[in-house]
């Protein structure tokens, strides 16, 4: 499919893309640091991935193959419309297969398949500031990052244990990047946290409404915060996928009727389909 010539390649004008690329380069140079950027209005509402879309537009080339997932699925509204958006404005090839993609834009999941050095993972981030709900003042949180003043982050985990007996944070679980910056991994389930560590793919995070970009260069050390006597634990998966039988993948619980019927299926649709040997060609 060819690009609609009414648009510049990938919708954004070249100067904007250069501005975003500069922010991305800075973000890669300082892993985990939130770089401010002049976020643009996009033809979709805030909260629908305007940050991720701008990052994708800035790194997208004519030969890239784009995959977009929403909670692991390729076929949900958000994923379908963003994929269509780039088909229309950039004319790039799209795919649902993780291993064929060069750029994967994601909302809150990391694919189950191992990523490679040739791939870029772009996260849509609603709230980039991990300290936001503990310290509402933005100048103060920036100062805390600058001074590596992160005691407060552990207060949150302490509260979890005091209240629930274990660290009950299950998504947006804070991580420390390269021994320096504390980062919000966007609201991915903490199940995915270990996949960020030492990942061969470049990981970029875009927050459109909050106007921040941050990044994890390939093979960056990413450690989930914890206590010595309450170490980080990946969410245990207690069930099997009822479609493909996977027992170690992140599952969605789907209500099937109004009689209390429910089934567990892989949240990563491509992973599930390829396991069932019916991945679309």
């Amino acid at each position, binding site marked *: 499919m060819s690009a609609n010539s009414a648009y510049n390649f990938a919708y954004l004008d070249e100067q904007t893309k250069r501005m975003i690329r500069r922010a991305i380069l800075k973000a890669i140079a300082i892993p985990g640091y939130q770089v401010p950027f002049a976020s643009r209005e996009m033809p979709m509402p805030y909260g629908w991935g305007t940050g991720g879309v701008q990052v994708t537009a800035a790194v997208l080339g004519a030969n890239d193959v784009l995959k977009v997932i929403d909670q692991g699925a390729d076929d949900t509204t958000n994923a379908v419309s963003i994929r269509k958006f780039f088909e229309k404005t950039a004319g790039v090839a799209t795919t649902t297969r993780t291993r064929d993609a060069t750029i994967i834009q994601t909302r809150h999941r990391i694919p189950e398949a191992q990523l490679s050095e040739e791939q870029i993972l772009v996260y849509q981030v609603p709230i980039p500031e991990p300290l936001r709900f503990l310290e509402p003042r933005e100048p103060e949180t920036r*100062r805390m990052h600058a*001074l*590596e*003043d992160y*005691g*407060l982050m*552990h*207060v949150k985990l*302490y*509260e979890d*244990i*005091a*209240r629930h007996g274990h660290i009950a944070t299950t998504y947006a679980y804070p991580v420390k990047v390269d021994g320096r910056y504390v980062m919000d991994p966007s609201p991915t389930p903490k199940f995915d946290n270990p996949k960020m560590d030492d990942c061969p793919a470049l990981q970029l995070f875009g927050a459109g409404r909050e106007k921040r970009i941050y990044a994890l260069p390939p093979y960056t050390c990413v450690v989930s915060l914890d*206590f*010595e*006597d*309450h170490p980080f634990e990946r969410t245990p998966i207690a069930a099997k996928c009822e479609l493909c039988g996977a027992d170690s993948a992140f599952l969605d619980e789907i209500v099937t009727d109004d009689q209390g019927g429910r089934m567990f299926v892989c949240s990563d649709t491509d992973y599930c389909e390829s396991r069932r040997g019916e991945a679309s060609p």
Partner: protein
Amino acid sequence: MTALLSECRPLVGNDQPLLQATGLSKFFGPRVGCQDVSLEVHEGEVIAVVGESGSGKSTLLLLLSTQQLPSSGSISCRMRDGVTRDLFRLTEAERRHLLRTDWGFVHQDARLGLRMGVSAGGNVGERLMAVGWRHYGKIRAEAQAWLERVEIATDRMDDRPDTFSGGMRQRLQVAKNMVTHPRLVFMDEPTGGLDVSVQARVLDLIRSFVSDYGLAAVIVTHDLAIARLLSHRILVMRQGRVIENGLTDQVLDDPREPYTQLLVSSILQT
């Protein structure tokens, strides 16, 4: 050269003041916050700053605790390593470290000193986590020990301070400050707004920490009875200046300045 030497030389013994302020002034445009205040605080010494509202007491406290920059003057502090340093030459990270380890600040309004959405245990543990404690069990045990010391029942440990009474909040604030064994605590009307019996418990607590831990304190109060009960020395402020200072008993029993005489004579006699 001599100035440099005196700045770097480790000072030993208790003869050297813990905190020394010279010629502190603070102007808010044409208004005077406080003017030309000098003061020394020695280890284990409690100093009361008294005066009417607007006399510059709280401004002085904010300056001393480095929460505001003075318009002129300097403050130096003898750190735990025995070296006396100019506080305004510390880096921001050093200053913050000092504020949450060696120093404490008890606000009149507990909401300023506590995190109201975080449990009592979390409030006390925050300072420990900020200085690198990463063992939940140990943090909790230490927090519990301090809550017991300020007479907060263990079963309230996981309750948030917004469910506490005013006196409990104030005692929690004291515990939160004491957990890192500070050597100097600043208090701004620590018992303001509390009823008399509750006041007495908070005052007892402060007094016992002063005697048990050799804590030094600068207490701002408008209540001369509290000044008499807690402090060794007293500073009387008026219109931003210190008009009289000396031993508490001496100043209160035999005030020299007419204004101090007025203050002392204004106490309701029972």
